[in-house]
């Protein structure tokens, strides 16, 4: 019998019951809750007279609607305010721990989970948010769910699931200067498409993935969903184990010894068989820039905007043309000729300390270009903000003309006041370039933090690897 994949192991470890049709009742170790996808779930519990199965397995934080400045004044938008207050009320009523808006530990749910050790290797982690895949970076089985499943998790600590297939994406070789985890994952999505991972759990492996920090691995797993997979995984190694020593909720003492022994086994066996394997050469990956309205519409920064006329598939050509029209771009235009109006560095993809450091290196001693109306830095959590300030990064950004904000989802999806106006073009470190995502009529180009920072300084896209070589 062949060995098991990491996903096989995690799955097997959490099966409570198997139905005749193969669907399983899976135990959930950690449930993260935020304000947008939970109010209807709590209402459901109340209507049915149910209580949470185990309140201690839930951790809540408001992140999508929170303002990133003047927080002491509260939330101006009454509808946003009601949603955040509803989370506060629900958590108080049901006894769930919540980091309030002004708690230093508040931040984006997928940033604070690993930061607090609330999500650990070997766990099953769910949240009513598709970017829950982020937590797979620690060797946890983590995936996004809808509100009905939020309610189901609250009430039963379990979910009914069908096992997905195994996909290994192996990225080997050493990346060049200025090429980051974001460029690796955008390049993967460009290769396999946004539906390429549908029905699969993706394990990211290979030397280029193993060389990434935990922050980088989180960036890669975060965008597994943009490749169509609900869950992404990276095997546990010393990088993982080092990261989880001394987190507030990490196991301590004898527990830590036991846990580390168990975590050592969280990798695919050498003879494991994957349903599909894709190999990528890391040395060929250049800094990436999306040009369209789907993350798969991506090219290297030194390329030109593609021409729909070169596409043989009629449905694809049509959607490329629609994307060009929406984005206000011409086929054949050089990516480096695209001028931007705003910069957004933040989101659950790229708002961790390493991301801020990478951006700071690029902007230090320079100024934001005059055509850039707004350049935002939104740290992923209050603790990251504090860390960055202790390193003097805030000063570097402010001196260069960036705005230094409080933690939240912010302009990734513009549910708070941070957004693009109609027709505005943004270099963004977030994860989705869908129509209207960052604001009605807004145009999003997904890039790494270093690339966003460089675009902010130059006023248009530039190949940051050239800057870093100097």
């Amino acid at each position, binding site marked *: 019998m062949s060995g098991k994949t990491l996903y096989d192991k995690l799955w097997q470890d959490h099966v409570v*019951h198997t139905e005749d049709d193969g669907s399983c009742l899976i135990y959930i170790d950690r449930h993260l809750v935020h304000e947008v996808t939970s109010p209807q779930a709590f209402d459901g519990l109340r209507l049915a007279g149910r209580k949470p199965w185990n309140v201690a397995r839930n951790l809540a934080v408001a992140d999508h609607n929170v303002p990133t400045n003047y927080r002491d004044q509260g939330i101006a938008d009454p*509808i946003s305010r009601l949603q955040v207050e509803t989370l506060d009320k629900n958590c108080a009523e049901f006894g769930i721990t919540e980091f309030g808006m002004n708690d230093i530990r508040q931040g984006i749910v997928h940033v604070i989970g690993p930061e607090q050790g609330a999500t650990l290797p070997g766990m099953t982690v769910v949240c009513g948010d598709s970017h829950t895949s982020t937590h797979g970076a620690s060797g946890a089985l983590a995936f996004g769910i809808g509100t009905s499943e939020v309610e189901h998790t609250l*009430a*039963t600590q379990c979910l009914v699931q069908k096992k997905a297939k195994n996909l290994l994406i192996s990225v080997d070789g050493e990346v060049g200067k200025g090429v980051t985890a974001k460029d690796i994952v955008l390049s993967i999505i460009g290769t396999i498409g946004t539906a390429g991972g549908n029905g699969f759990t993706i394990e990211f492996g290979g030397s280029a993935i193993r060389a990434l920090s935990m922050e980088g691995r989180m960036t890669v797993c975060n965008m597994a969903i943009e490749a169509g997979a609900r869950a992404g995984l990276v095997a546990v190694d010393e990088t993982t184990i080092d990261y989880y020593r001394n987190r507030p909720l990490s196991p301590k003492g004898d527990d830590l010894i*036991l846990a580390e022994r168990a975590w050592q086994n969280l990798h695919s066996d050498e003879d494991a068989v994957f349903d599909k394997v894709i190999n990528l050469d890391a040395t060929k990956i250049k800094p990436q820039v999306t040009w369209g309205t789907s993350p798969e519409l991506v090219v290297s920064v030194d390329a030109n905007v593609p021409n729909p006329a070169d596409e043989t598939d009629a449905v694809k050509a049509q959607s490329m043309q629609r994307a060009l029209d929406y984005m206000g771009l011409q086929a054949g235009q050089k990516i480096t000729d695209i001028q931007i109006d705003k910069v957004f560095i933040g989101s659950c993809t790229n708002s961790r300390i390493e991301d801020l450091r990478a951006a700071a290196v690029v902007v230090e001693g320079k100024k934001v270009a005059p055509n850039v109306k707004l350049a935002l830095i939104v740290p992923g959590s209050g603790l990251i903000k504090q860390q960055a300030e202790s390193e003097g990064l805030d000063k570097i950004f402010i001196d260069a003309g960036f705005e230094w904000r409080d933690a939240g989802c912010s302009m990734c999806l513009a549910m708070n006041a941070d957004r693009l106006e109609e027709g505005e073009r943004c270099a963004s470190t977030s994860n989705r370039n869908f129509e*209207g995502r960052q604001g*009605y009529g807004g145009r999003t180009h997904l890039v790494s933090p270093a690339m966003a920072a460089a675009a902010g300084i130059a006023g248009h896209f530039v190949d940051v690897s050239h800057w870093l070589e100097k």
Partner: protein
Amino acid sequence: MRAFTTLTSIVAPLDRANVDTDAIIPKQFLKSIRRTGFGVYLFDEWRYLDQGQPDMDCTNRPINNDFVLNKSQYKSAQILLTRENFGCGSSREHAPWALEDYGFRAIIAPSFADIFYNNCFKNGLLPIALDAEIVDGLFKELNDDYALTIDLVTQTISTPSGKTIAFDVDENRKFRLLNGLDDIGLTLQHADKIHAYETERAKRAPWLFREVSI
């Protein structure tokens, strides 16, 4: 949840691939703490010419007459025919809520994003994945009063030309949808097994079962 058994309806064609949940229901409407009332904002940025806001009265908003759902012949459509990877992106269940609230009961496409597919079954919506060639055939056959009959019991679709197309659906999901069953109630029938699992797991991974205060 409303049960789904059979449905005969006009079919609305949405000829786009990778329709994401941000397009199905834009983020500003996610600020609602209710589960209903999203139908009028379904495909808001495509359907109207102005910018939609939560709690907006939509009766006098400028309509995009080019958008397929605004064409009079599709007003009563309960079946949506679309292209691959429908429902990609955000996990928001507001997307199936909006589709259901608008009046759709079934969606036919070559493929669906996993989370969206799963969410549909929790809301009485039937997502049907068919081979891309078959979907393409339906797009070609489609005319103004084109109606399909979907039978979940026999897992078949009947076309006006008399063809019968079979589709796949998990037994478990089919059973729940046919009976309009509450998933939580069914899961709680296994409460003893969940307790037993916790007891056994606490021995293997005691660090996950400590009382920790944060």
